């Protein structure tokens, strides 16, 4: 999940290429099957907002921020950021469902789980996210940031080059 690079711990991140995502929503369904043992996209830890088509749609999930504001907002101190796995963890047994974490999160990533009666967030499936395994277009990736950035820059560069050439990408 992480590796040392010049003494700095680098962690894998969950990322999405919005230019590839077609808004199918399978990530939502599979996530809920994994965590809730039922197809229940409204309580999935990764959520798709699809209104408006590909230009406006987005996928919301926990970014596991370095300084998570949800942890600051939690009235019970039930959210911790663990440096080594790099995860923001909701201790749901302490949660009393006030919803402050969801309100404060810029993405609204925490989601209410009716089975646990608590707010929860993406746990990256312990290091092997199922949403990445099933994404039909491979828009979701779980990898080291520099690799994701490099692939993205290559793609953007290639697009730019082809635009300059007046050709369309295949």
């Amino acid at each position: 999940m992480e590796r040392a690079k010049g003494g700095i711990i680098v962690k894998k991140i969950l990322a999405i290429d919005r230019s590839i995502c077609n808004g199918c929503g399978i990530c939502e369904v599979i996530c809920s099957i994994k965590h809730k043992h039922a197809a229940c996209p409204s309580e999935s830890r990764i959520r798709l907002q699809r209104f408006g088509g590909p230009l406006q749609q987005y996928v919301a999930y926990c970014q596991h921020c370095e300084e998570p504001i949800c942890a600051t907002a939690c009235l019970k101190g039930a959210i911790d950021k663990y440096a080594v796995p790099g995860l923001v963890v909701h201790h749901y047994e302490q949660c009393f469902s006030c919803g402050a974490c969801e309100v404060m999160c810029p993405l609204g990533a925490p989601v209410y789980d009716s089975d646990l009666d608590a707010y929860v967030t993406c746990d990256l499936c312990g290091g092997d996210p199922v949403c990445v395994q099933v994404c039909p277009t491979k828009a979701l990736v779980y990898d080291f940031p520099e690799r994701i950035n490099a692939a993205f820059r290559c793609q953007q560069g290639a697009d730019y080059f082809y635009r300059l050439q007046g050709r369309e990408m295949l």
Partner: protein
Amino acid sequence: MSRTTRCLVIDLSDRHLAQREIQCEHFGGWEIHLQALRPLWQQDPTALALSTGPLVGSGAPGSVTLYWCFLAGGEWMIVPMSGRFGAYLRYSGIDHLILLGRPRHAVDISLLDGVGKLKLAPPLKTDDDIFQRVVQNLDDPNGVVLSCNGECVMEDGYFKLANPEIARRFQEKRIRSLATSSHGKLPIADSDAFLQTCIALYGSYRSPQNNLFPVPYLTLCGEARNEGDANAMCADAKPICYGKERAALELFAMSLLGLRKEDCLPQPPIPWAAELMTSYTGRPWHEEDMIKAACHVGELMERGMRHGDND
């Protein structure tokens, strides 16, 4: 193999909504059209039915098939459609939606967790976007909205779902929008096994040679506005008659389950469909069960249903 399905019947002429449970001998779906709904078609030949199979919304590859069914020129028509509407119908606890009659004024229909509501649609100005107006008036915007722009039926204001024939029927029934949202769920008996089967199936697609052919679990990119053939779905809008050939029965059994057969998925399709059904229902399903169900419904169809009468 019997299955209890829930059917929401909306009579648009008097705004009456009724829910009822129907016991199906096999998977439901088309069997419903052929048996339970026959009296409805005798009562109203303009009835429009939307039906789902047991695996719709489960997350399995291709599990998006929603069938639109209606009578046209005395012929029984079935139009398959992808998109998320069928899945959200099932999350809200409805397996079939039947639209009867015709209202005096245009209506917006919303289904929130299976509870239907009809509202008079406000008059439109020339530059109004139907979809935006519907979303603004929704009680819960977390769902799926079908709207009819006169030429086709759109999902979520962007994805083109159905051909002009369906759009015309929407307009005849004066339905301006049909929205569903739900916080419900589809329980899966053996979720771990189901998940592993799904991952394996999606994994088989995700090999490099299949990169260009997305498995259509809720995938709509090929049907997006301004893309593709506007009449692409018309080819399916014909009475479908399946013979007793194995391939046709396989295809029929898959569609009864709510699955679309995809070339990029492992062949033959029935074994993995049986595996999915086994983990989904928690009891063993065999290929023979599915073929038997397909034969049963095929026989019903071969009797030649006309105007809701199969004599």
